[in-house]
């Protein structure tokens, strides 16, 4: 309906032209849009949704037919792991005035980004060939092109390395979280509607860490040994990190209202790195190692220190759960 509109008109008195897209993600971000509850009606009142594959019947060719910068704001969730996702990221970048990386996957790679400790071959081996519930005698794995009688079948290429959105296209704003907190979504939508967006490249979340929003009482940080959640008999009403549970709170950007902590679960880091931090996981490694075994550190032998460190079972999965593609070392070195 707005195809004939002049570009300057869009977004002034007219409704905001919005698009949503998902790439390598679980779909939770799409649901998060509806988590704003009845406020979704305000969003619909202020915006026309031009493209949203999960909810409305629009096709890629509809987007391709748009003029450049026709969409006012595109909320893009999910990481980039196939050629189709890369194509859509580039297409939506060209068609959108503002591109928002929505959710942990688009911002930092997210859970799909953990695939960077393997490559395509290893992933296909597990997914299609060698696992107890798969029977695949012909050893069929996805190919980008297969010729059959009826013609040629095509599939997008599956990449070796998962990337976050800004490693593929220019991103204007970041809205982290797995999924983003409804308040952050409404703040972002409000800022867009009122044209009060911060400068390009900003993360649309508070500057402080999750600890700032956490309800637990905090005192001096000391840990005798690291425990996993099930190893703690009775949780005390104080900082989980001080009780030996690895909580990513200190290295993670807040804005989530520390909801996981409210449910007595440690922060796993979905908010991504804190401002000016180059690498979320390395920051947490520094912080955790500094307070681990601090009380008896002068008496401890190297063996005892090693035993303490050994209790961290999976450094990548613990410290980089949502940010491996954005880390300094962003993929495993394959031998």
């Amino acid at each position, binding site marked *: 309906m707005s195809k004939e509109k002049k570009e300057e008109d869009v977004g002034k008195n007219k409704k905001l032209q919005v698009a949503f897209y998902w790439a390598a993600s679980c779909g939770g971000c799409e649901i998060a849009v509806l988590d704003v509850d009845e406020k979704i009606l305000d969003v619909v009142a202020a915006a026309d949704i031009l493209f949203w594959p999960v909810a409305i019947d629009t096709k890629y060719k509809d987007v391709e037919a748009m003029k450049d910068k026709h969409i006012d704001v595109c909320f893009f969730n999910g990481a980039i792991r196939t050629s189709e996702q890369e194509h859509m990221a580039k297409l939506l970048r060209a068609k959108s005035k503002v591109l928002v990386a929505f959710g942990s996957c688009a911002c930092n790679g997210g859970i799909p980004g953990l695939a960077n*400790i393997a490559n395509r071959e290893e992933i296909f081996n597990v997914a299609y060939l060698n696992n107890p519930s798969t029977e695949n005698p012909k050893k069929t794995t996805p190919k980008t092109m297969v010729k059959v009688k009826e013609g040629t079948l095509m599939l997008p290429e599956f990449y070796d390395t998962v990337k976050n959105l800004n490693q593929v296209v220019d991103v204007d704003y970041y809205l982290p979280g797995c999924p983003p907190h409804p308040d952050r979504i409404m703040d972002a939508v409000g800022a867009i509607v009122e044209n009060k967006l911060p400068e390009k490249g900003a993360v649309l979340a508070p500057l402080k860490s999750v600890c700032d929003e956490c309800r637990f009482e905090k005192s001096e940080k000391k840990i005798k040994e690291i425990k996993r959640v099930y190893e703690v008999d009775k949780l005390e009403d104080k900082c989980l990190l001080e009780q030996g549970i690895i909580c990513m709170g200190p290295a993670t950007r807040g804005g989530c209202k520390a909801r996981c902590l409210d449910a007595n679960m440690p922060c796993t880091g979905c908010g991504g790195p804190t401002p000016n*931090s*180059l*690498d979320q*996981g*390395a*920051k947490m*490694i*520094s912080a*955790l*190692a*500094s307070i*681990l*075994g*601090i009380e008896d*550190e*002068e008496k*401890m032998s*190297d063996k005892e*220190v*090693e035993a*303490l*460190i050994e209790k*961290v079972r*999976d*450094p*990548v999965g613990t*410290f980089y759960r949502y940010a491996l593609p954005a*880390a*300094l*070392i*962003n*993929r*495993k*070195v*394959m*031998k």
Partner: protein
Amino acid sequence: MKDFEPNIIGFLCNWCSYAGADLAGTSRIKYPPNIKSIRVMCSGRVDTVFVLEALKKGADGVLVAGCHPGDCHYQTGNYKTNRRIKLLKKLLKEMGVEPNRVRFEYVSASEGQKFASVVTEFVNELKKIGPNPLREIK
């Protein structure tokens, strides 16, 4: 691999290890010129981010050296770095980077000889391991 000369970044603490390196120099002890030293006030100042960044930017090895246990000018900085480097090595192993590319050593201000032998040993070890594979990954 004969011609491979490893590139090492050394984070040396101001009070012990940097003075130790200085002593190696003034005593005219010979050691390989592969190390680029960066003076930090304490080995405890070395964030794991520094080490990862050095590796990311192509260093073949990173040496972090601090005071012996009990000698830290700031009491306990060296203990913290010892634990950090151990945890970091575990991460590197999971990421397929040889953990031996990162090394933590205690070198006092009087140990010029030890500094020289640590660097020599490290260079020889890195020559065996080969160039840093992260250099190619962008």
